Every structure is written in C-alpha cells, then in structure tokens.
C-alpha cells in the first residue's frame, strides 16, 4: 500500500458502496469516513438502508459495488470471521446453550488466546459491564438488560477494530433503555472504540453520537454533529424526520435588511432570515420547528385560532390556524393552556426560520 500510514487512515471508510437486490437498490453509492474512536449513528426510517450498511461492514451481506476499509485494510472481500469486528444485535443473540463465560470467551477461543488469559479477559469484560460473578449462569437466567450487557462484553472483549450496534436498545423497555444509553456511551468512551450505531430513534441518535448520518431511501441525506442535523437540516427530509417541524410552501416577495418576506401559499405572509442565495420571486419552503412557534394573546402578532390543544404537563401541543394554513406549536406553558376555538396571536422569530429551495435543499 502506498496510501496514508495506519495512524492517519480512517477507522472505517466506505467508498461508493452500493447494494442492489435485483431491481431494488438498498444502498445507493454511499461514501463515509469515520475517525478512530468516533461514535457515529446511522439514523433513518426502516428500509432506509442503515442496517444494510452495517451488515455490509460486518460481512453479513455483500455489497454489489464500492469498497469498504477498516483500519486501513480493505475488507469487503474478506470473509466475516476474519474481519475482527464486534457485533451487537437487537435481540442480544447470546448462545442459549452456553454459559455466560463461554459466550464471552467464544471469540477469544478462536483468537488462540491462552486459557488463563481468557479467564482474566472475561472477568475484566464482566467488570466493565458491571455484572461481575455471573460466569456460570445461562443467558436465559438473566434479564433483557443484563443480556444486552453480556452481548456488549462479548463483542468488546475481542478488541475489535470497530464495534457495530444494530438497534441494541430497541428490545428494552423505556426506563432501561435510557439507562443503557448512558452506560453504553460511558463504556464506549472508556474503551475508546470506534462505534457505528444503527437506530430509527432520533432521541438516541442525538443523545449518543459524535456524528449522525441521516439516511433515506438508501442515500445519505446529511452527515453532521447532532446539533448540525437538528438545527441546520440540509434537506426537506432531515427537517421533517428530526423533531416536529412546520414545512410551509410559499414564494419570496421581497428581500431587505437580510430578511425575506415570504408569501405562504394560500396563507399569510411570514418574515424569515434571508440566506445569501435567496432571491426574490423564488419558490421556497419555510421550515420552522414546532417549539419555535409561540402563541399568546398578542395583538401585533399573526392572528390565529386554536384548532386543537393537548396538555402534556410542562408543555402543550397545539394546532393553530392562521389565514388558511395550519401550524404546529409545542410550547412551554407560561400563562395558561389555550383552549380549542380561542383566538390567539402567533409569533415566529425570523431567525428561527430556514428556507429550502424547490428541490428541498437548504438555501445558504
């Protein structure tokens, strides 16, 4: 190899990876570079290709095109058992007929590690996932959360080049899921292992990741930090998939002082911060998060009417109508909960509005 040395090579690199079944293209020309120690999440709805990418890296499916490298070594032609990859499944996949010790020791056995060393490593792995002393138990004697920790220990103990997590939290109940989320992140930090995490749960993705790859229909929609993808969605899909947003089609009527006046289709006018590439007369979609739509008794605000209101404790979710368009608003409750049918004033800060062009890409 004449390329970059091992230390500067990305931990995982995908170059133009494509995977097609007959006519269905599950993954379309995906390129991605992951740094050593990074926690990257593949996020998207089911069928977006995120699991297929994970399984391609693991070697469980064969891409029909492109290259995959791990730790500077091309692996897409290497059989799965020679790839040195840690894999954790949604349903744990602990071997039901083997004790916890034998489960964790399984990978070490095939790496020709000495017996005494295996025992030491298994013990250390169990300490790491905070389940010491369970070596002799069978998987069926443990709870779901415990089983998932054992599965994590089994994957990490072989010191893989990359840890692949396929929706590992989705089989757990809500409370446990949050606890495991924190713990998984702590362990990943401690071990410093490069991790690729697949989920359809945006909260998990936002809470755990260094970077998020938002996917749709086999393609990468956006790649960025959690804040990037949440606050500055680059496409219509990302804007609508993450959080609750209002997507309002309209046309720019005028631009002045860095602000664009947008005439919404069949609705009122709205003022949005104007990016440099915004032009008067262009068809755009205004994106505004539901939390950024505030409603109150204001008089100079946009007049509207409450269509429905759901009380959620600290916040309330409203649908309000204004001049023929419908807006979603999730607001903290300051004064009181507005009732259905009440007349209110809607306020939207121009700085909270993003503009998408006709193709659905964000104007910059």
């Amino acid at each position: 190899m004449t390329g970059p040395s091992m230390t500067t090579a990305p931990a995982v690199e995908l170059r133009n990876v494509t995977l097609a079944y007959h006519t269905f293209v599950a993954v379309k020309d995906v390129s991605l570079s992951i740094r050593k120690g990074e926690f990257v999440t593949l996020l998207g709805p089911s069928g977006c290709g995120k699991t297929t990418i994970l399984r391609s890296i693991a070697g469980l499916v064969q891409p029909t095109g492109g290259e995959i490298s791990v730790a500077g070594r091309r692996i897409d032609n290497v059989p799965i058992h020679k790839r040195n990859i840690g894999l954790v499944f949604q349903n744990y996949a602990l071997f039901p007929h083997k004790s916890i010790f034998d489960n964790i020791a399984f990978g070490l056995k095939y790496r020709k590690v000495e017996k005494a060393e295996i025992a030491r490593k298994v013990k250390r792995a169990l300490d790491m996932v905070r389940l010491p002393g369970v070596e002799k138990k069978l998987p069926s004697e443990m709870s779901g959360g415990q089983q998932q920790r054992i599965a994590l220990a089994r994957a990490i103990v072989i010191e893989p080049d990359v840890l692949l997590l396929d929706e590992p939290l989705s089989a757990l109940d809500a409370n446990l899921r949050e606890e495991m989320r924190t713990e998984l992140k702590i362990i990943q930090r401690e071990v410093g292992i490069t991790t690729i995490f697949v989920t359809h749960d945006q909260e998990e993705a936002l809470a755990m990741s260094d970077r998020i790859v938002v996917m749709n229909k086999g393609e990468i929609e956006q790649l960025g930090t959690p804040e990037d993808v949440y606050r500055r969605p680059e496409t219509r899909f990302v804007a609508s998939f993450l959080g609750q947003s209002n997507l309002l089609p309209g046309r720019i009527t005028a631009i002045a002082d860095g602000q664009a006046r947008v005439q919404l289709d069949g609705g009122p006018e709205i003022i949005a911060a104007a990016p440099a590439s915004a032009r008067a007369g262009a068809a755009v979609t205004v994106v505004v998060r539901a939390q950024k739509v505030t409603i109150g008794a204001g008089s100079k605000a946009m007049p509207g009417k409450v269509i429905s209101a759901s009380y959620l404790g600290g916040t309330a979710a409203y649908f309000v109508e204004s001049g023929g368009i419908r807006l979603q608003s999730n607001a903290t409750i300051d004064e009181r909960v507005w009732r259905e049918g009440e007349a209110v004033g809607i306020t939207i800060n121009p700085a909270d509005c993003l503009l998408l062009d006709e193709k659905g890409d964000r104007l910059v």
Partner: protein
Amino acid sequence: MNAVAESRGLGWRLVQVFTVLVYVFMFAPIMVVVILSFNDSQFGGFPMTGISFRWYAKLMENDAVLRAFQTSIIVALITAVICSALGVLGALALVRYEFPGKEWINTILIAPALVPETVLGVGLLLLMRWAEQPRTLWLLVLGHIMLALPYVVLVVQARLIGIKRVYEEAALSLGANRIQTFREITLPLLMPAVVASLLLVFTISFDNITASMFWRPSGVETMPTQILSMLKVSISPEINALGTLMIIVTVGLPLIGGGLARYLARSGR
C-alpha cells in the same frame, strides 16, 4: 337451568364411554398379544392355562429369529445414522441457503413419503435389475434411507427454522468459520431434532415389511418378514413373545428418545 346441567352431564358421560371404547378398540389387540405371550398353553390363543416364560426361552433358542433380529437391528442402526446425517445436511441447505430449483428439490425430497411403498419397492428393485446389481444388504439399507429421509428432512427443517440465524451470525462475527459455527452453535441447538430423527428412522426401518420384502437379499430375513413367514406355517405362541419384544423396541425407544430430547431441549435453553 337444572335440566341443561343434567343433559350436559349425560352428554359428557357418553363422550367418556365412547373415548374408552375407542381406546379399547385400538389397544385390545396389542394387549392380547402381550398377555398371550405369557400363556403356558401349546396354542397361541385363549384360554390361558397358566403363566410362563417358556415362549421367550424358546425364542432365544430359535436361530432364525435371532438372525432376523440381528439383521433388523444392524440395518436400522446404519440407516438411522446415514439418514439422519443426510437429512440434517439437506435441511440445512433448504433452510439456510438460497439456490435455484430449491422448491423443486424440497418437493422431490418429501415425495417418497407420499408414494405407496409397494411402488417404491418394485421401482428400486427394477432399477437394480437394470443396473445389474445384486440384491445385497446395502440395497435394503439404501431403500430404507429413501423411505425415511423425508421424515428426517421435515423434522430437522422444523427445528432449524426455529433456530434464529443471528446465533450463527454472532459466531461468525466472533471469528468462528462456517464449520466451527455449525459444530459449536447450530448442531448443539439442533440436537433434539437429531435425536428425534435417529429414533424415527430406526423405528421406520425396524418396522418396515412391505418394501423390505422386495429388497432383502434371498435367504435373509428381517424381523417383520421373519414373523410373516412364521405365520405362514402356524400360529405358534412364540410369535406372541416375538410381537411383545417388537412392541417394546418400537414403543420404548421413541419414548426414551422423546424424554431425552426434551431434556436436551430444556438444558439447551
């Protein structure tokens, strides 16, 4: 209200009586054979004249019977081992891999279970004639494998579908190759089905008479053909003793095996 309860009581009583009658109908002949095998009388029928084990003792001195028993056991054992191994491999291919013509091969594997045994018996015999092969014990084994293979494939397939693929995927990702994965993960999880098919094949082979009559080499008798030829001469009480032994083998073995399989399945979970 009371009348309803009463008529339901009567109906229930009828169901009970009928159930007992069905069981009597099914098991009385078997019981008769077992009971008469201990009959002291010269004749293989009622009335009982006393209890004795003389027919069992006489059986043990009957060389033809012992030879037939030995033949049947050997054929059944060899058939069970080969057939189970083939069946496991076949089921693995059908459940775990995709290949063209899979549906066809599946159907063809199951087909011998649907074809009348007489047809299979004549067919294999004609094939061997055409190939100018002598009738040896191996032909008998081959035939029994053909008869029992569909059942093995079905039993193993059913279990294999229940074994999640992720176990194998996890083993592969941890560094075991395909053969090691099969040995360490798939086969142990498949063990109850393997034990079940060994027993099933043993019983099918040990029991078989129709096809065996076509396939056995001349001068060689299996247990069922031996009994048939003994019946042609006379109904000796020895046959009752022999029948009882057959019942013990063909009923006892699956019972033991079933218990073993259940034990393996439980400890395997």
